[in-house]
């Protein structure tokens, strides 16, 4: 398994974003983590990266409830991108609404659904999923 280069953390709460960034770097061994406080920015940058074929993230950690662009809208837009390489999306949310978890299963881009906090259990599940998807 190669060392993953880049992860996006799309999260409007600054403290959560910083915490997530620290954990993703430390526990999931990403070299770089970029945080976005709104999804539109995240999507715009992703689109440019995909077009240039450079700096495309390996993983996107997506929060569901944010201003401007709803998490689902981000996923809808995401699925229209022509991707040369695999980008894994994990949803990391504080929602405990069953509807959200159910809805997430309809997006094939979503490889994992996690409820905050990003504790030991969640990190282990992410590690397992990442190696699994990476091997596939």
């Amino acid at each position, binding site marked *: 398994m190669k060392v993953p280069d880049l992860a996006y953390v799309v999260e409007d709460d600054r403290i959560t974003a910083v*915490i997530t960034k620290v954990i993703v770097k430390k526990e999931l061994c990403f070299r770089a983590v970029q945080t976005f406080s709104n999804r539109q920015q995240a999507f715009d940058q992703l689109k440019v990266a995909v077009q240039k074929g450079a700096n495309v993230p390996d993983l996107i950690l997506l929060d569901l409830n944010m201003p401007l662009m709803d998490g689902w809208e981000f996923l809808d837009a995401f699925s229209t991108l022509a991707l040369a390489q695999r980008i894994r999306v994990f949803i990391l949310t*504080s929602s405990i609404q069953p509807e959200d978890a159910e809805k997430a299963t309809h997006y094939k881009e979503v490889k994992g659904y996690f409820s905050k*906090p990003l504790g030991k259990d969640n990190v282990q599940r992410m590690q397992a999923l990442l190696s699994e998807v990476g091997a596939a």
Partner: protein
Amino acid sequence: MSTFIEQHPELAASITQNSVIYDFLQNSLTDGLWYWNLLSPTEGWVNATFWQTLGYAADQVPTDFAAWRACIEPIDLAAAWQQAEACLQDPTLRFDLVLRCTHRQGSPVWLRCRAIVLRGDSDRTAWLVGALVDVTKEKHREAYAQEVATHYSSILSNQSVYILKTDAQGNYTYVNDFFCERFGWEHDLIGTSSLLSIIEEDRPKCLEVVMQCFQAPEVPHQVILRKPYRDGSIKANHWEFKGLLGEGGELVEILCVGYDVTLLLENLHRAQHLLDVTSQQNLRLQNFAYIISHNIRSHSANLTSLVQLLAEAKSKVQKTMFLQMLTTSTEQLADTIVNLNDIVTINNNVSKPKAARSLKTDIDKALEALSVLIHQHNISVEVDVAPTLIVTVVPAYLDSILLNLISNAVKYRSLDRPAFIRLRAQINPMGVVLTVQDNGRGIDLVRYRSKLFGMYKTFHDNEDARGVGLFITKNQVEAMQGTIQAESEVGVGSTFTIQFHESA
């Protein structure tokens, strides 16, 4: 007849003289004969047929000659006496009356008595000879018919059902007393148009049902129509229309039977309203649960992670950073709890007392509170609200609603053009309508309409947007039985329209 008798003198002789014919006639044509001495009213005689009619067998006939008197109602006997006297004076008069007699078993027997008065030569004798016919059956039938008539007339004019008929043109041909009494009209209603008594809005509905009566007269057609009651209130009645056909099978009349369903409908609306309030509250509760899960959990998640990170931190710089974040996080959690408390407070005070307020005064107060910001951003404000306009509101809610809408207009003003805020108020049948219009950044309603008034929804990338303002505003408006709507276009501006509900 007389010619016939003249042609057969022997038959005439037999009829007058032959006792066989006489007996036959008296027994077969009458139910009794009665001889009464008009000079001595206690003296009289009745034949065996009379006793038979009253239920006495041959061996039961009283031996007392005066027994017949006890069988006839004294009042009727007195009336008979009077009529007999009159006949005695005036021979052209006919004696014909009904005597109430008592059957052996106690039941009444009505005997029609036709009689002739036989006068002696020198006024020394005067007899009444009466032929009695049992009319008890007819009397019973008459009584029954009377009872039926009374019964139906009491149904027609009873206390709870309207019964009326109209001709094929819809003019009244019959209305029962109850209908008249309830709707305060006189009987000269007959011949006037029934349509005019129905409120205008319901007339097409009535006509439609009348058309159905023409198409299928035998089947009852149901409809609920509203009419003005005599005290001016509007009553809803449930009607059943049925066509009445003439001999040629054509519709000649429409029979309409109705009853008041005002209370029923009011209760239905009340139940519906309760259901609406309940579902609204349910929705709010769900939303609230979601908010708690999202916001409190997100802070608690942060706190958990930060404590963990703080424990594992190696450098002092890291420790200081995490500690700083921990402080901010606890502050945010406290803020969130304050917000949630605001929302719970509205939902707890559904029945807060309302007061009459001058809308203009309260608008001026809100503008005054925001005057620094308004001046600072050079926003022009127009208020087109009559100073006399009164709204019945929960005062604290009105203040909060005005502050929130106006401060939103300030916060989301356009940076490209001179900003304005316009407040206007009008009166419509429901109450006062307030519009707050701005030419600010606007909201993409195609995308956000369903979320506009939701909790913790923000639509601009604004640092201090909490996403509770419009949610609280909507809750406050609805807690006062009002409604709020928004029109908006990105880059053009937004208009919020509040309908106050005065009566509640």
